[in-house]
C-alpha cells in the first residue's frame, strides 16, 4: 500500500461518520459511543477496505484486534486510534460456525501478527493471510486445532493428549546454493537473553532474512484471568512483564475504573504520574546499559548499570519494591507517600538525570561506539508507518506518537513535556531518543511532585457487574492497552492485553536484514524490546 500522507485533514467525528456513510452505505452502521466511535461492519467483505480507509486515508493507527467468543457468536474488534476522534472500534460479528473471516493483512501489514495470534488461539481462519500457523503454539510442541482461548477449553486440564509434530523443520526463505540459517537461541547469551529463537539466513556475512520465533514465554495470561476476581487479575496484570509492571497495572486499573465509571482522586493521579515516569526512567537506563553492553564499551555499560541500580534502590526505598509491584489498585494507589519520601526520590532522580546527561555527552564523543550504531539497523519512516510501530523505536524513525499526548490519562495533560522524535531510524537515533525521554521523565516527575496536594490516595471501587472497560498507558516500550469485560458476578470474563512489544517485534526483521550478523546483537539491544511482554 502507498504510504502517502492521509488524504483528509484530521477529521472529527461528524466528518468521519459522513465519509463512512458515503463510501460504504449499507455495509456499515456507525454509532457514537464514548470514548470514540464504534463502526459495526455488516458486510464482511468490506472489512479490508474499511481498514485501509481508516489506516491510510484517515491517518489512523492500528491498536490491535480483540477476539471474543460470547453469546454464541464471534466478536472481532479492530481498534484504531484517530487524531481528534480517539478510539474507533470496528466490530465484526459472526456466528460461531463461521470460521473464516477475510484477512485485512494485504491492506494493513500491521495486522499480520494479530490475525496469526487469533488463528492459533481461537482457530479462526483468516482468508488471504499468507502465513498462518506455528505462531504462539509452536508446532514442535503443540498439535494443531487446540484453540486454548475457546470457552470449551479448560486451562487447568493438564492431561490432554499431546501429539506434537516430530518432523518439524523451519521453513527457509533464501534459496541461494550456499546459504544456511544460523540459529540463535532460545537459550543464548548464557541464558541472560530472553528466550527467542532467531534464524539468520545468510551466505556468510550479511543477514539476508531473519525470522524471530517468539512465544517461548507464553503463559496464557489472558486465559487464566478468565473467571478470576479483579484483585487477582490485577496481580496478573502486574506480573506478566515486570519491566513495565507499573504501566500495565495502571492500564488495567484504568480499564476497571472506566468500566465502573469511577473518578480517581487527583493526588492518586499525580502520584501515578510520578511512579510511571520513575519506571520509564529506570527502564531507559537499563536499555542504555544494554546498548553499551552490546557494543562492548564496558565502562559506559558499568556507568549505566550504576544509574539503573541506584534507581532500583530508590524505587525500593520509596515504595518498598524495586520494580514497583503492588502499588496500583482500581481507584488509586494502595498506599500514600510522605513529603520527605518524595523529596528523597527527587534527589535520586536528579542524580540519575545528571549522570545520564554526562554519559550521553561522553558517548557522543566516542567514535568507535558511534561507528557501530550509526546507519546500523535503520528503519525508514515509511516502514515504521507501514508496520505501525510504537514507542521510542517509532519515534526514532519519525513516527511521533505518544499516548500521553494523543489520549492523555492520569494528569499528563497538565504538564509540559516533549515526546522527542528523530528521523534517521538507525541505532544511534534510538539511543538519542532514549536519552531524551529519560530527561523528559525527570522533568515530569519534578512537575508531578511539585503539583502534589493533600488528598485521598484512593477511593474504593466496586467491580460492577456486566460492564466493559478499556484503559491505556504509554509504557516505556510504547502504547499498551488493556480491555476488560466483567461478567454478571463482577468477575473477569475476558481480559485482553495489547502490548507494545508485540507490535514492535513485527518490525524487527526489517532492521536486521542486509546487515552483517555481527551487528545483530547491537540492533537487538537498540530495540530494547521485551519478549516476555510480547508473549504474555
Amino acid at each position, binding site marked *: 500500500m502507498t504510504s502517502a500522507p492521509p488524504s483528509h485533514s484530521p477529521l472529527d467525528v461528524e466528518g468521519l461518520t459522513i465519509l463512512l456513510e458515503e463510501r460504504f452505505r449499507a455495509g456499515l452502521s456507525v454509532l457514537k459511543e464514548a470514548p470514540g466511535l464504534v463502526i459495526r461492519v455488516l458486510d464482511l467483505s468490506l472489512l479490508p477496505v474499511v481498514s485501509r480507509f481508516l489506516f491510510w486515508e484517515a491517518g489512523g493507527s492500528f491498536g490491535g484486534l480483540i477476539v471474543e467468543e460470547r453469546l454464541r457468536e464471534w466478536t472481532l474488534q479492530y481498534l484504531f486510534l484517530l487524531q481528534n476522534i480517539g478510539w474507533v472500534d470496528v466490530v465484526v460479528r459472526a456466528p460461531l460456525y463461521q470460521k473464516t473471516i477475510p484477512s485485512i493483512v494485504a491492506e494493513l501489514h500491521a495486522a499480520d501478527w494479530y490475525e496469526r495470534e487469533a488463528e492459533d488461539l481461537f482457530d479462526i481462519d483468516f482468508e488471504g493471510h499468507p502465513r498462518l500457523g506455528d505462531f504462539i503454539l509452536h508446532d514442535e510442541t503443540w498439535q494443531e486445532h487446540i484453540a486454548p482461548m475457546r470457552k470449551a477449553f479448560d486451562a487447568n486440564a493438564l492431561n490432554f493428549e499431546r501429539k506434537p509434530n516430530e518432523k518439524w523443520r523451519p521453513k527457509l526463505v*533464501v534459496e*541461494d546454493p550456499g*546459504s544456511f540459517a544460523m540459529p540463535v537461541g532460545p537459550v543464548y547469551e548464557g541464558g541472560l537473553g530472553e528466550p527467542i529463537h532467531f534464524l539468520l539466513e545468510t551466505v*556468510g*556475512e550479511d543477514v539476508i532474512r531473519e525470522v524471530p520465533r517468539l512465544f517461548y514465554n507464553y503463559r496464557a495470561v489472558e486465559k487464566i484471568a478468565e473467571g478470576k476476581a479483579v484483585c487477582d487479575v490485577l496481580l496478573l496484570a502486574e506480573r506478566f512483564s515486570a519491566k513495565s509492571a507499573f504501566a500495565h497495572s495502571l492500564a488495567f486499573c484504568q480499564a476497571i475504573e472506566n468500566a465502573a465509571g469511577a473518578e480517581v482522586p487527583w493526588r492518586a493521579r499525580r502520584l501515578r504520574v510520578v511512579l510511571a515516569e520513575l519506571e520509564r526512567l529506570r527502564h531507559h537506563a537499563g536499555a542504555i546499559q544494554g546498548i553499551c553492553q552490546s557494543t562492548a564499551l564496558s565502562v559506559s555499560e558499568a556507568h549505566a548499570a550504576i544509574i539503573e541500580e541506584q534507581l532500583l534502590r530508590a524505587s525500593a526505598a520509596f515504595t518498598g519494591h524495586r520494580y514497583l509491584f503492588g502499588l496500583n489498585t482500581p481507584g488509586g494507589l494502595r498506599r500514600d507517600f510522605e513529603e520527605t519520601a518524595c523529596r528523597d526520590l527527587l534527589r535520586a532522580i536528579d542524580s540519575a538525570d545528571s549522570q545520564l546527561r554526562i554519559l550521553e555527552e561522553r558517548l557522543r564523543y566516542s567514535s568507535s561506539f558511534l561507528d557501530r550504531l550509526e546507519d546500523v539497523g535503520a528503519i525508514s519512516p515509511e516502514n515504521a508507518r507501514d508496520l505501525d510501530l510504537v514507542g521510542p523505536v517509532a519515534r526514532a524513525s519519525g513516527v511521533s506518537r505518544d499516548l500521553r499526548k494523543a489520549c492523555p490519562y492520569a494528569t499528563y495533560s497538565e504538564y509540559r513535556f516533549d515526546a522527542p522524535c528523530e528521523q534517521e531510524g538507525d541505532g544511534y537515533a534510538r539511543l538519542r531518543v532514549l536519552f531524551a525521554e529519560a530527561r523528559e521523565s525527570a522533568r515530569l516527575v519534578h512537575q508531578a511532585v511539585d503539583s502534589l496536594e493533600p488528598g485521598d490516595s484512593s477511593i474504593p471501587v466496586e467491580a460492577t457487574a456486566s460492564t466493559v472497560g478499556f484503559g491505556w498507558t504509554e509504557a516505556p516500550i510504547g502504547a499498551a492497552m488493556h480491555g476488560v469485560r466483567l461478567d454478571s458476578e463482577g468477575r473477569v470474563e475476558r481480559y485482553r492485553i495489547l502490548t507494545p512489544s508485540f507490535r514492535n517485534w513485527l518490525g524487527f526483521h526489517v532492521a536486521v536484514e542486509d546487515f552483517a550478523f555481527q551487528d545483530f546483537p547491537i540492533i537487538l539491544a537498540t530495540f530494547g524490546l521485551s519478549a516476555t511482554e510480547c508473549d504474555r
Partner: protein
Amino acid sequence: MTALAGGALLVFFIVCAIALVLSTLVSDLAAIILIGWQGGICSILLMLAGAARLSAGADFYQPLWTIHGVGELTLRLDALSAVFLFAAGLVYLSCCLFAPGCMMHSRNSYPAKRYSVLHFALMISVVLILTAGDALTFLISWECMSILTYLLVNHGQERQADPSAGYIMLAMSEAGFLAVVIAFLIAAGGASGLSFSALRESAAHLSGQAEWGVFVLALFGFGVKCGLVPVNFWLPRCYTASPAIFVPVLAGVTLNLGFYGILRMNGDLVPLHGIGPGLFALITGSVTALVGILYATTETDLKTMLAHSSIENAGIIVAGIGAFFAFRSSAIAVPAAIALTAALYHTVNHSLYKTLLFEGAGEIESAVGTRDMDQMGGLIRALPGLSIVFLVGCLAIAAAPPFNGFVSEWLTLQTFLRSALLSAALVKVVFALCGAILALTAALAVTCFVRTYAMSFLGIRRGDWHFSVTGLSRRARASMILLAIACLFLGILPTFAIGVLDRAVEPLAGVSATTALVPPFFTATESNGQLPAAFLQDFHNLGAQTGAHLLAGRGLVLLLRGSEQNPVVFAMSPSYGVAAIALFLLVAYVVVGRLTRRRAAAGGEVWAGGIPRLLPEMTYTATGFSNPVRVVFQAIFRPNIVEDARETVAVHFRTAIHRKREEMHLVDRLFFHPIGAAFGGIARLLAGMHHGVLSGYVSYALVFLLVILFLYRLT
C-alpha cells in the same frame, strides 16, 4: 648403473608396446586387468630407470633412427629427465592401481578397451618427451601427447556436462605447441642440427632479443600445460570435465611436462643471460599462484577447486624456477641451486599429493554422487579410511609439517629471502613483493584446504544423498595409501631427497645443493674447509648426530651457512621435528591421562541453544566459510549478484528469495574476452567485405591493382 637405466627404459618401451597391441585385441574386462598389471610393471620399470640414472653418473644415450634430410631421433636420459621420470613412474603406479578399481565399480559407463589403448599410448609419448635427445623427438611426442590427452579427456563424453572443455584444451595445447616450435626454431637458428647438444652449442651465439624471444615463447608455450596465467583458461574446465580415472594422470604427469619443458629449454639448452627473464618468470609464477588459490578458496565443486589449486602450485614452482634463473644469471650459484632444488622438490611433491587428492575426490564422487562441497558433510563417518588418507593429502598441500609440502614451500620462501645477495634495488623489491604474494598464497591455501576437509568430512550430512557403496576396492585405497606414505617420507627425510635431486641440480646450477644445504653432521668428525670445528661441535652438542647409527647419509639437518657475523642463515630439520612431535604427543597423552584419571567424559548431543534438533541447514556451508575471502578480494572477483524474490501480498511476506552469483574468471575478463571481442570485431569488419555485390568485388581488384602500381612506383 647406466646400463641398468637404459635397459629398464628399453624394456619399458617393449612392454608398453605389447600392452598397447594387446589392448586392441582383448575384451573390456581383460583390458582393465591389463591396465592394472601391465601398467604397474611399466611404472615400476620407469621408477627403476629413473632411480638407476640418479645413482649413476653418466647419461644414457640411444639413437633411434635417422630421418634423411632432417636429423637423427635420439633418446637421452640425463639427471633432469630421471627426476621427472621417477615422479611420473610413481604417479602412474598409483593411477594404475586406482583406475581398475574405479572402472570395475562403474564398468558399464567406460569403454575400457579404448581407455587402455589410449592410456598406454600416452605413457609411451610421455616417456618419449622426457627422454628425448633432440628437438624432433621432443616435438613429435609432445604433439602426440596433446592429442592423446584430448582423446582421453573426451573419453566419457556422454557423461560430461561440458563437452567443449576437451576441445578448448586441444586448441590451447596446439597454440602452446606452436609457440614451442617457434622457440625451438629461433634457438636452432645457427645450429648444425636439431639434437640438444647442437642446440646447446649454438645457444651461445644468440642475441639478447632472440634469447628473450625463446624465453617468452617457451614460458607461455609450456605454460599452457602447467597452467600459467594467462594461458590457463582451459585448465579448470578441462579438469572438471575429465573422467575421474584420468584426472590424476593429468594432474600428476602431464602438468609436470610443462615444468620439464621450461627447465629443459631455458635452464639447459638456452641458458639465460640477464636477470630480466628470471624476474619475468618470478612475477608470472607469483601472480598465477595468487589467482589460482583465490579461485580455489571460493569454489565449491571439489574437482574444480583442486584444479585451481594445481594452478596455484604451478605458480609456486614457476616462481622458484624464475628465482633460479635470476640467481644463475647473476652468477650467485648457491641460492640458484637452492631455488632449483626447491622447484624440483615442489614438482615431485605436487605430483604426489595432487594425485592423491584427485583420487580421493574421485572416490568421494562415486560414493556420494555429487562433487558439490555444499552438499557433503559427515563423510568421516561413512568413509573413515578415505578420510585419513584425504587428510594426509590436505595437510601436505597446505604445507603442514611433517609432510612434504612443508619442506618445498619453506625452501622456496627461503630462497626469496636470499635476494638480499642481489645488487639492484629494483630486483630486491620485485623479490620482496613476490615473496609477500607467495606468503599470502600459502595462508590462503591453508584456508582452502581446511575448508575442503572440514566441509566435506566433518559436521552433519547436508545433502540428500545416501551411500551407494562403502568406498572403492582395496586396490584403489592402496594406491592412495602408497602416495600418502610417499608424502610422509618425503616430508621427514628431506636430506635424502635433496641428495637425490642434487644429481639434476648440480649440472644446471653449477654447485651442489647437497653441499650447500646438508652439512655432513653424521660423517664429519673434524673440521673441513666448509665447517669449522667450533660450529661442528655446537651442532653435535645440540644433537645433530642423533640417528647417525640408524641412517646412512650426511645428516638430517637442512642448514645454509652464511658469513662470520651470521653463521646460520636458516636451518631446519623435519626429521627431528617429527620425532619431537611424536614424543610430545606421547608425553601429553600420558600426562593428561594420569591427571584426568578420575574424570568421566559423558557424551551427548550438540548444544545448539535448546532447539529440538540441529539441522544440516543450520551448519556452515563451504560457501559461507569462504565468504570473507570473497568479500575481501571483491575487486578481483567482481561478481554480479542476481536476486529474485517471490512474494505474496507484499514485500513483508516474501516467501522465497532466490540469489544467484555470476562471476567471470579474472583471466577470461582481462585477456580472453577482450581478445575474443577484438577478433570478433575484426572478423565482423572483414565479413563486411562479403556483401555479394559484383561491382564491389570488381572494385576490390581495381583497388588492389592501384596499390600494387603505387608500391612499384615507390620502390
